[in-house]
């Protein structure tokens, strides 16, 4: 793809209203938005609910199809669909993680995962859907095995962070778990052998050219050999690992700092997401959304990235989450303290033509 010749801009497609408090997080449902299946997006909020939005195939606009309420009694901080799209996991400040099953558009809470001492802040499914990870203010990361009949078994409680854990994220293809924290570090967790013996294999901290304040989020590129993280230190950092040696079973293949993008943000960066096409998107407390791509000037010592476009005033308040759709429609969703979710498309500013990647 070539981002050199044209100017690009984000165009607002739709504003989704309905939440009555800040929207914290988003999840595009896998296997939707492609092959005639309408795109489905979940959003969760400080109003203690989760909303399911579905794109109409006739009009192309999103409508709220379901409101998941009366289960969590505090903020729902994070949500994640299982890879098959059958289950939705929601993590709440009420110390529980709920598992919802979608039966023909009717969502039923089929399981509640208890164990964290207080606020659960993030939830993530591994690539195969056999494992679930959660983390929270109690500084721990929990790994749950997904058993038949909606049973979930805690197989490991990982201690290591010294402050609350903001996000957990599985590697897109391997069973390696990443967590980032208020303690300014990113930790990499892997299983030793196959006996549920999970442990920390690497800590990316200040001495590994890491962040100097809270790390809020991280995301992987399509091939899984690069990771991007964002922080309260106003930078985003790109990390790389030798994917070949990881795939051949060396989960200790270290992640190294490739570059830092500083000077672009002037308030906390809450969210970062790397699209399959290679566009890094950030959402920040300055109400703006920014897109970055690898620059052609990348040198032998490592890649360089440039700002593709910045959408000022993307929302009326902080942008808490940005998320590219993983399917063909190339849509971006964002969530904000202003209580809204927005759907964006990326186009060239000259031709008004939707970007063909």
């Amino acid at each position, binding site marked *: 793809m070539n981002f050199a010749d044209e100017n690009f801009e984000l165009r607002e497609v739709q504003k989704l209203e309905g939440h009555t408090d*800040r929207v914290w997080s988003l999840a595009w449902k896998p296997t939707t938005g492609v092959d005639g299946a309408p795109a489905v997006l979940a959003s969760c909020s*400080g109003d203690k609910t989760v909303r399911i939005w579905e794109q109409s195939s006739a009009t192309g606009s999103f409508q709220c199809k379901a409101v998941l309420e009366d289960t969590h009694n*505090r*903020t729902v*901080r994070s949500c994640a669909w299982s890879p098959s799209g059958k289950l939705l996991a929601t993590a709440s*400040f009420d110390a529980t993680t709920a598992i919802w099953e979608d039966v023909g558009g009717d969502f039923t809470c089929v399981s509640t995962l208890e164990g964290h001492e*207080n*606020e659960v*802040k993030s939830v993530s499914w591994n690539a195969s859907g056999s494992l679930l990870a959660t983390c929270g*203010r109690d500084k721990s990361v929990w790994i749950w095995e997904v058993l038949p009949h909606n049973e979930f078994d805690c197989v490991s409680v990982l201690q290591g962070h010294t402050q*609350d854990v*903001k996000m957990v994220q599985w590697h897109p293809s391997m069973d390696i778990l990443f967590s980032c924290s*208020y303690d300014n570090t990113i930790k990499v967790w892997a299983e030793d052998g196959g006996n549920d013996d999970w442990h920390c294999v690497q800590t990316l901290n200040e001495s590994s050219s890491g962040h100097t*304040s*809270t790390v809020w989020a991280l995301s992987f590129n399509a091939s899984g050999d690069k990771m991007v993280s964002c922080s*309260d230190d106003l930078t985003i950092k790109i990390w790389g690992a030798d994917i070949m040696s990881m795939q051949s079973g060396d989960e200790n293949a270290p992640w190294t700092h490739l570059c830092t993008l500083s000077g672009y943000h002037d*308030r*906390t960066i809450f969210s970062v997401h790397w699209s399959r096409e290679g566009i890094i998107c950030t959402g920040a*407390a*300055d109400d703006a959304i920014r897109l970055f791509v690898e620059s052609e000037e990348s040198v032998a010592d490592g890649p360089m990235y440039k700002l593709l476009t910045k959408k000022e005033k993307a929302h*009326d*308040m*902080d942008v808490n989450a940005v998320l590219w759709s993983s399917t063909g429609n190339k849509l971006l969703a964002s969530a904000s*303290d*202003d209580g809204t979710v927005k759907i964006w498309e990326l186009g060239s500013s000259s031709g008004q033509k939707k970007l063909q990647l």
Partner: protein
Amino acid sequence: MVSGLINANPVVYEKKERRTRSSPGDVDEYAVEQIDQLEIFDHIRDIKDPEHPYSLEELKVITEDAVEVDDNRSYVRVTFTPTVEHCSMATVIGLCLRVKLMRSLPPRYKVDIRVAPGTHATEAAVNKQLNDKERVAAALENPNLVDMVDECLAPSYE
């Protein structure tokens, strides 16, 4: 005095005289009125200290000069001075300031709250916590803390 207070005998200062805004007759009532330092100070000066029957102004925890505002950028920073440097109430005071400004200012405003440099033993930790909006959001779902904050804020609504 009740024993067990963090600072049993705080120095109490006189309140500053309240200035009223001059309003000459020819003011355009439709003109956008800028939010200034005094307006922000007025929102927070009467907040009650969590452990004393005095306002934050009377204890000089905040002063008018501790408020920096840039209305064009919708930005406010409040720097407060705990009465003692081991004050365990610092985060509660910071929370009160944040909540009051959240309720008083237009939502476009970005607010930073910090303790004055060198006035608290765990300055960096207090500042980090007060400016982590996720922790603030979680704290404000804790009924005990909300009661405490509301009690401190009550006089500031009079």
